[in-house]
């Protein structure tokens, strides 16, 4: 990705299981305005397999998913 995305909020959900990680994602998104971007870090496994899809189902846009060195995932979400 050449263009850079401005991140408006960050949430580290390392070690947070499902579904509490989705609860945190919703809380952080609720604080943002439409169009702003949340960067959330999710564990590998069920968290990365479930949270981005759930976020999309609520109408938000998943801009990017990137696995980090420790195996966790950095996900960028644009609020609907």
């Amino acid at each position, binding site marked *: 990705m050449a263009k850079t995305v401005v991140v408006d909020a960050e949430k580290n959900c390392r070690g947070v299981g499902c*579904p*509490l990680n*989705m*609860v945190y994602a*919703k*809380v952080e998104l*609720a*604080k943002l305005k439409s169009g702003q971007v949340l960067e959330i870090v999710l564990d590998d496994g069920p968290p990365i397999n479930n949270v981005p899809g759930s976020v999309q*189902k*609520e109408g938000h846009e998943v801009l990017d998913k990137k696995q980090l060195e420790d195996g966790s995932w950095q996900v960028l979400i644009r609020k609907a």
Partner: protein
Amino acid sequence: MRDFSLEQLERYSRHILLQDVGVEGQEKLLDAKVLVVGAGGLGCPVALYLAAAGVGTIGIVDNDTVEISNLQRQIAHFTKDIDVPKVESAKEKMLAINPELEIRTYQLMLVADNIRDIIRDYDFVIDGTDNFPTKFLVNDACVMEKIPFSHGGILRFDGQTMTVVPGESSCYRCTFRSPPPPDAVPTCSQAGVLGAIAGMLGTIQATEALKFITGAGSLLTDTLLSFDAKTMNFRKVQLKKQDNCPLCGQSPTITELVDAEQAVCSL
């Protein structure tokens, strides 16, 4: 936005996960005030579910004390609570489920003279009463104070409920003009009632309150939902706001509250 504690996020996580409730809906629930009229078969499940849901302020009205014959269906009351005021027994269980709520108890009979002052402070009222005069009193007072409410009634294997949003939807009197004559309809203590249907109907009423507060879905307005638990048939009858309703019609004849004659159990 309200700062939710970690404990609150976990407690209400199954609400927050719902797209139609979410963080905003849970905030509305915590800020809401609901009055439960009657701490009996209907009021008990309603009160427990509203407490569990995090409705921030819950009032509960009942003048009675717990009797052993109540325990078959009034699930907030335990054997140890016999002779305890029902409002105190219910409050104890509600706070045991959710200690962060404000529970207001009213150990009194709702009558024409006190009902408007009591309901005025609430966003939604649940009618969990066991007699027609009080059902009409709750309807009339809620329409006059413009407070939405859920009507509910159970007998034997049957239940019925409707939701009234004054000014928008039909009221109880649009369909049922006046209380039936005393003794025309038996009470639960005369005719009996299957305990679990109190939970069936009460949880529908609690659901209506939660939907009203959060704005999720559509309400049972202009709709009488009834069920027969023997066949498990559920039926919805569409109702219409009546221009000639004596309470909410175009030229109302009921403009102040009066206490109707109380049906007296003769058996």
